[in-house]
């Protein structure tokens, strides 16, 4: 147990601090998000990603040859904490960086690594994840979108749903069924699909929160070259699991900066707003609840750091990432609820504090559904981590 930083970790941190000081955008991410259009916000995040890339901080633990820094997972953890301390913008392209990139690094061909990894880090290419279908959500392996081999191509037909970022994505990690006779887990293949391919239609779906973060995607005779198969043909289930394990391991750690910023902002409100003639922060019940928010967030930070420290030894994220996913999604929902309680009747107005809290409250509902529902995470923990017998 030594949570102190080594000499080289300290150097990394100090260099990063100096870099952040010089390069953080003038406008805070929250200000741009609430005051400007979705397109402007996207551009803002894209510019930030570009800066990180040029500064050598886009893929801290990714190999150097693909534009990463080649640093350790510990330095990755330091990086995330420092970003949170500096109140840096959140990351864009979380699908590319958190899910597609690590999977390409693990199972991709050299040519695929050369072609895709750099674009993920620079923010030039945005990815989406075409897994879920109308009849295949939790039971992902039952998906029906077909990929039929035809000469040097696979021809894709079918429908995906809930695809985040499809409306702005350049590329898609798509799972299709390539063998309809094999058992359901054995006939799947992962494809790296250009979203500009003829035959793809993207239709935005409106979320409960009112914005359009996810979409339906329709594939009609879309031709995907066979060298765009990620991993082996009919081994797509294992590739998808690799991708999902990375998603669970990575998604949460990048969210710490957002959660921390939210808690600090809630505390600000709690100090300024009054209830029963006293600042809300002095209300004994809410004070207890806010302290619990602090504890839960701190334990989240420690869990993340510990997971990254373990990753240094194991190299690849395993099923225990489901603990992280479960933890952060439920934490964010609890904290969003308490934020609304702190606001009291102000929470009735969707434009209070530029609508930030109502949005958070509504958006957090999706956290226990996206990237695998809480029930599915608990199944994974029970069956794959604790070794209890499978129930389905």
């Amino acid at each position, binding site marked *: *147990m*030594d*949570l*102190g*930083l*080594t000499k080289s*970790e300290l150097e990394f941190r100090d260099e990063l601090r100096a870099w952040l000081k010089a390069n953080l955008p003038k406008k805070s991410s929250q200000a741009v998000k609430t005051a400007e259009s979705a397109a402007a916000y996207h551009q803002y995040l894209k510019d930030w990603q570009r800066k990180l890339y040029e500064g050598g901080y886009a893929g801290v633990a990714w190999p150097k040859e693909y534009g990463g820094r080649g640093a350790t997972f*510990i330095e990755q*953890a*330091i990086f995330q904490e420092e970003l949170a301390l500096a109140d840096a913008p959140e990351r864009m392209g979380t699908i590319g960086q958190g899910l597609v990139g690590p999977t390409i690094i693990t199972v991709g061909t050299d040519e695929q690594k050369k072609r895709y990894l750099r674009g993920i880090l620079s923010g030039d290419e945005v990815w989406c994840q075409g897994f879920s279908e109308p009849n295949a959500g939790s039971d992902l392996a039952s998906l029906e979108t077909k990929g039929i081999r035809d000469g040097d191509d696979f021809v894709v037909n079918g429908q995906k749903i809930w695809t985040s970022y499809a409306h702005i994505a350049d590329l898609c990690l798509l799972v299709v069924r390539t063998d309809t006779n094999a058992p359901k887990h054995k006939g799947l293949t992962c494809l790296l699909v250009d979203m500009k391919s003829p035959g793809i239609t993207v239709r935005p779906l409106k979320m409960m929160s009112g914005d359009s973060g996810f979409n339906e995607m329709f594939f009609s005779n879309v031709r995907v070259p066979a060298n765009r198969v990620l991993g082996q043909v009919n081994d797509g289930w294992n590739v998808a699991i690799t991708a999902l394990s990375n998603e669970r391991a990575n998604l949460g750690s990048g969210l710490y900066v957002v959660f921390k910023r939210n808690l600090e902002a809630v*505390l600000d409100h*709690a*100090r300024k707003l009054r209830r029963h003639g006293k600042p809300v*922060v002095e209300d004994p019940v809410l*004070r*207890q609840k*806010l*302290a*619990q928010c*602090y*504890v*839960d967030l*701190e*334990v989240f930070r*420690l*869990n993340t*750091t*510990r997971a990254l*420290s*373990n990753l240094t030894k194991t190299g690849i994220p395993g099923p*225990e990432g489901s*603990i992280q996913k*479960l*933890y952060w999604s439920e934490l964010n929902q609890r904290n969003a609820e308490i934020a609304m309680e702190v606001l009291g009747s102000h929470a009735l107005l969707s434009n209070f504090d530029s609508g930030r809290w109502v949005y958070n409250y509504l958006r957090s509902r999706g956290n226990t559904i996206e990237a695998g529902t809480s*029930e599915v*995470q*608990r*199944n994974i*923990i*029970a*069956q794959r*981590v*604790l*070794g*209890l*017998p*499978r*129930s389905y």
Partner: protein
Amino acid sequence: MEFDLSKPQRLLQKSARELFARACPAKRVRELMATDTALHPELWSAVAEQGWLGIHLAESCSGLGLGTVELAVVAEEMGRACFPGPFLGTVWAATLIAEANARSKHLEALATGESKATVALVEPEASWDPADVQLRGTKVGNGFKVSGRKSFVLDAGVADLIVCVARADDGLALLAIGAKAPGVTITATPGLDQTRKLYDVNFEGVTIGAEDVLAVGDAARAALERSMQVITLAVCADMLGGMQWIIEDAVEYAKTRQQFGKAIGSFQAVQHMCADMLLWTESSRSATYFAAWALTAEPASAARVVSTAKVYVSDASREVANRGVQVHGGIGFTWEHDLQLFYKRSKASEILFGDAAYHRAQLADLVFSG
């Protein structure tokens, strides 16, 4: 940075686990619970011989000179074995004495297990906040005279020495009092957790000479706070060990117990209870070991990290114990099943040294101001 036990710390964990498995099986825990003191002299000596009673104390204080991480490692294994006896009282007192006066004559006997001690802090009003101490210490020459009652005093029945926290004119006073000194009456109070005994201690005009005044005023307050942080950490680690026992036991049972022709562990309702137990246990591990590290490495943040751990682990430990019983059904509710030992110890640990609500209030004061 490494957020995991080092090789020597793993070895320590292994030898502690082996020692308790051998010398402190559940059968012995039950025998000791039924006694007045829960003290087993040989078991106590075995622990003392390892140096674990002063594992975190400096060598100059007769300790092993290791850190609070090592203390947590040992305390975790004690929790996993429901180790009965006066560990908390003695280690708390030794830590307090070492903080107050590193050259105290008492330290050697405590660290070697020759004598046992405790701290009398809480009063019948049941507050763990030192600010609420009311028992008066009246100055007599360079010494003190005390009268009044302390409650919830750990292990007093076997203690040779009681460190009494009294209120003096210039703040708190830490007074070392022989348990058999004239005017001291010790009465056992029946406990929810029978592995760690609690007592009322009454002081009736007890006089304390100058040499037994450990600290007064700010120094007393600082030593008391620090010692409470250290012992609260040990309680968190004890709860963590208990949680680990409970989850292993519950998962094992879920794999073997059959109903409806299948292992109950194949039912999702049972699986989800086990999954939550793992999340709480592992998160408690992160919080406890971070606090253990910070207590030695970053003492300035000690109050914050220890309260964070006590809040999280207290609630998590209760929930894990609840689920542990539920997974077992009827057998889990019996006196005969060992779960009851861990269940009660967990509940007691949740309350000792301030429950989650108390530490949330402490944290709010620490982090919300400004």
